């Protein structure tokens, strides 16, 4: 009796925990099909209209477009800057390594409201008006450390002898980087870029402090929450979710196929 309890306790607990984490996702999805008159709080009636006309509320789609653009631009910048730092940390000895590590660690240990308010105070003090580009600046700032950490883990697994072999085989410094180092780091760089994109796309607090009149998708949802979030926002949220899960599944299936091929 006791044995079977111990055996089933953990799986049951884990299942319940996963149900708990899935409930709001399911809710968001279900309420994207709700026929809404005033607010999308209570269920009324099933409809496809929200999906078919998701840009009927132009603000939602405009905010979504802004979020995408900001996420793409800030991801490109922070991935480039962060990869360079990760290579320096993983490959070179230099003075001030611990100060560098501390400066990279701090943004991850600072509440968003502090970073957001700090940058906003700085823009205020130097008289920069906030908008699209101040959001990009802010997003590069808080995603950079996450890129460094992710790429650095990959640099650590890279055998320096592979680069030496490249140099030995007549490759100059830039050939070594582009034909050996970069392709081998690419999975880590891609993972970092995806993380950076997700962090930027979903950021609200830092964005709110540094956006001025500019709207992003999370900012739109936050502002709309007082009146009731339009179901079109649920549509976009669900759509992003489906695309992201599809990407993750493709990546995982490819990885397991590759592993299988190597074992054969």
């Amino acid at each position, binding site marked *: 009796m006791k044995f079977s309890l111990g055996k089933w306790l953990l799986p049951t607990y884990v299942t319940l925990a996963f149900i708990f984490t899935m409930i709001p996702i399911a809710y968001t999805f279900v309420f994207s099909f709700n026929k809404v008159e005033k607010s999308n709080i209570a269920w009324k009636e099933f409809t496809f209209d929200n999906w078919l006309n998701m840009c009927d509320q132009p603000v939602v789609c405009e905010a979504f477009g802004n979020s995408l653009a900001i996420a793409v631009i800030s991801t490109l910048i922070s991935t480039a800057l962060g990869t360079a730092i990760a*290579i*320096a940390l993983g490959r070179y000895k230099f003075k001030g390594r611990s100060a560098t590590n501390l400066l990279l660690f701090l943004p991850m240990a600072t509440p968003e409201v502090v970073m957001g308010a700090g940058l906003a105070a700085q823009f205020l003090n130097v008289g920069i008006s906030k908008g699209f580009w101040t959001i990009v600046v802010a997003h590069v700032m808080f995603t950079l450390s996450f890129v460094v950490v992710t790429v650095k883990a990959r640099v650590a697994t890279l055998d320096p002898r592979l680069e030496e072999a490249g140099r030995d085989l007549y490759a100059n410094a830039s050939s070594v980087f582009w034909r050996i180092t970069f392709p081998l780091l690419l999975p880590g760089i891609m993972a970092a870029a995806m993380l950076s994109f997700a962090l930027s796309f979903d950021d609200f607090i830092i964005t709110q402090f540094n956006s001025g009149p500019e709207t992003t998708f999370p900012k739109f949802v936050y502002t709309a929450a007082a009146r009731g979030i339009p179901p079109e926002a649920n549509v976009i949220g669900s759509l992003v979710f489906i695309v992201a899960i599809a990407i993750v599944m493709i990546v995982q299936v490819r990885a397991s196929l590759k592993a299988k091929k190597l074992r054969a």
Partner: protein
Amino acid sequence: MAFVALGQGSAGNSSAPKKASRVAFILLAPGMIYLGLFFLTPLVSLVITSLKTASFTGEIGMYDYGFQVSNYAYALDQYLPQITRSFIYALIATLMALLISYPIAYFIGVKARNKPILQAFLLTLVIAPFFISFLLRTFAWKQIFSNESPATQFLQSIGVLAPDQYVIGSSFAVIAGLTYNFIPFMTLPIYTSLERLDTRLVEAGADLYATPVQTFWKVTFPLSLPGVISGTLLTFIPISGDYVSASRDFLGGSDTAMIGNVVESNFFRIQDYPTASALSVMLMAAIVVLVSVYVRKSGTEELL
């Protein structure tokens, strides 16, 4: 996860050439200058702004440079309940998240170790909430807890809630929302350290006459401690500054405001930048003190 990774891997390559430091400098400089300009100096800006005085023209939102330390006294006096509430909520939500996450992480990292497909599937479930805007997720909880929702009505019908009592607006709702939003941040680092756990150590514990419970507390848990520490930090720090869950438009009510909410309202609604900045500086200072004490007490200083 991030904390664990940053703590390790500072081992440089011993065969680094002499000119390396110049290359390293070129690689480091752009990013580090960026962080200096847009992370470090803003913290200084925050301190400067927190000491500003009201403009003598009396215009709203205009302040002069000054050294008005009393801004801090004012902020403390005015917002002490919100400040303490922030840390209490953050503490409870972090513990709740640990309670929920540890079994998940243990199951994926240890029990599902030899089942790669199940492991991959469960990991996808763990990170799935990341893929839907956390504002929409929090709003979904508002729907679930709303006064006319089936869940609330059920709780009222079985007498857990009085007929005129509601979930939304309560501390419970806010803490539940905070806990929920940060579960993946807790699960992933714990999973990472448990995944690396050598199961032979557990077998050795069993071999040396420890019961499964003793083995867990004497072997497994201590070895997963780095993950637990990074997980609790990755949860506690953002929660203490969060203001979405506690907002009245989401799960909060009239007496659930946290420090983030008062920073937001001071900054945007009444444009009292000095008070907003003073509150932020105090939050940052408290976090730095708490984190360093915590990290030291838990004996993993190499984390920093």
